[in-house]
């Protein structure tokens, strides 16, 4: 290692020391990390399932009434051309369409934690199905 390369490394090491991060490389993670991340994800899936089975709008209708186990939501086909909207739409647009219409409620921001949880849930129920953007 040349002294020039070494000089470049020093600020990184100092930074690591300052923030108290463990002294492993960024692309190394452990079984515990995997477990923790999965736990974080599954917690949000669980929140999504809870939202799915409770009313999101004003008329007491829940998503699960028409979509048991999030069936017929086809998250793997989005973005896709949604003929009724006349444009390529996100799954989030369709979730909001359902909240507005059958559930008679107010749409969520696309980055609303509830929107993220709902998408985590419906994608999890569809795990293993190949991506098929644009499919009808």
């Amino acid at each position: 290692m040349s002294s020039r390369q070494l000089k470049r490394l020093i600020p990184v090491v100092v930074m690591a020391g300052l923030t108290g991060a463990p002294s492993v490389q960024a692309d190394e993670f452990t079984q515990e990390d995997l477990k923790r991340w999965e736990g974080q994800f599954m917690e949000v899936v669980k929140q999504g399932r809870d939202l799915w089975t409770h009313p999101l709008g004003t008329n007491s209708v829940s998503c699960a009434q028409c979509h048991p186990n999030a069936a017929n939501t086809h998250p793997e086909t989005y973005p896709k051309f949604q003929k009724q909207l006349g444009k390529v739409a996100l799954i989030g647009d369709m979730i909001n369409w359902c909240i507005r219409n059958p559930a008679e409620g107010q749409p969520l921001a696309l980055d609303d934690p509830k929107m993220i949880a709902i998408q985590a849930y419906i994608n999890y129920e569809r795990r293993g199905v190949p991506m098929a953007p644009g499919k009808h």
Partner: protein
Amino acid sequence: MNTRISRRDFLKGAGALAAIGALPISLVELAFADSAENFTFAYISDAHIQHIKGTEFVRNWDRGLIRAVAETNLLTPKPDFIMFGGDLAQLGSKPELDHGAEIMSALSGKVYYVMGEHDYYLDLGQYWEQLFGPQYHSFDHKGVHFVVLNSVLTYDDWTYKRWPTAEQRMLEMAGLDNPNGSPFMVGEKQRQWLQVDLQKVGKDTPIVVFSHSPIQKIYKGWNFWTEDADEVQALLKPFKKVTVIYGHVHQIQYNQIGNISFHAVMATAWPWPYPATYSQVEQHLPKLTVPMNRADPFFERDATGWQFINLATGNVDMRYNLYNNSSRTVAFNPKTGQPEDAMYQPADQRIPPQIHF
């Protein structure tokens, strides 16, 4: 096929209806026998009238039932009677059953009711019985023996011991995909009653059984299932012509098991996905079934509807009146001995919306 297909206007006031559009005004009747023996009945099912609060109910589901009632009243010739296939209510409450009964009261003609799980699990059918009569019974009509079953019972432990309140019991059973639910069954007591009831019926007499759940095993996870289906089928086996008509599944399904034809009816409230669209499980949709078109959620009545049934031969010809979709006819084909779709049965006649994934 020695089928005489005659076109006939079944709905009165066709001109007025054509103006509204999307209503079928001309229906195909498949007649196999002496037309003097012919009779029809209408079938409305799964209205899921849902109480919000006070005098508010979910508008979408109300409209579905109101439309089915209005159109059934326009049928000509007038159906001999009307069946309601269960799940009049969403959570079995008095306001829901009362509101549903009020909408149904606009029907002209005799109405028979089948018990659905959404009607049952709040008070175990007590108030429903006051409104509509016994939970299971039989009657004879023009040479056909009709049996009405309550097929949505389940294990006593689940019904009587598991839940702290009746409201929670109702909510747990109301969630179609709820893992806390419990499989439907007819139960031993009712099977014994059925055995006795059928003793007086000739083996050549056509039998039509009305149940809410399929008396066959399709997918347990959503209770497209009856736990003692095999035992009930065994009781029906000695008879020449047997048809089971069921609700619950909110979709077109049909099947033939031995001597028994099976037909599902549509919901007026909302359509349900076919179990195959839940990719995490195995399911057993009858191979015979040509699925209904995938529903377009932007048309709130799409893939919902009602049906009328022709019993000319003692076998069932089912006419599905679908909104925003071409109507479907599934008729018993005496050559193959099974129900078949009049248009889409051959594999090369299927259309892209019938592919579910």
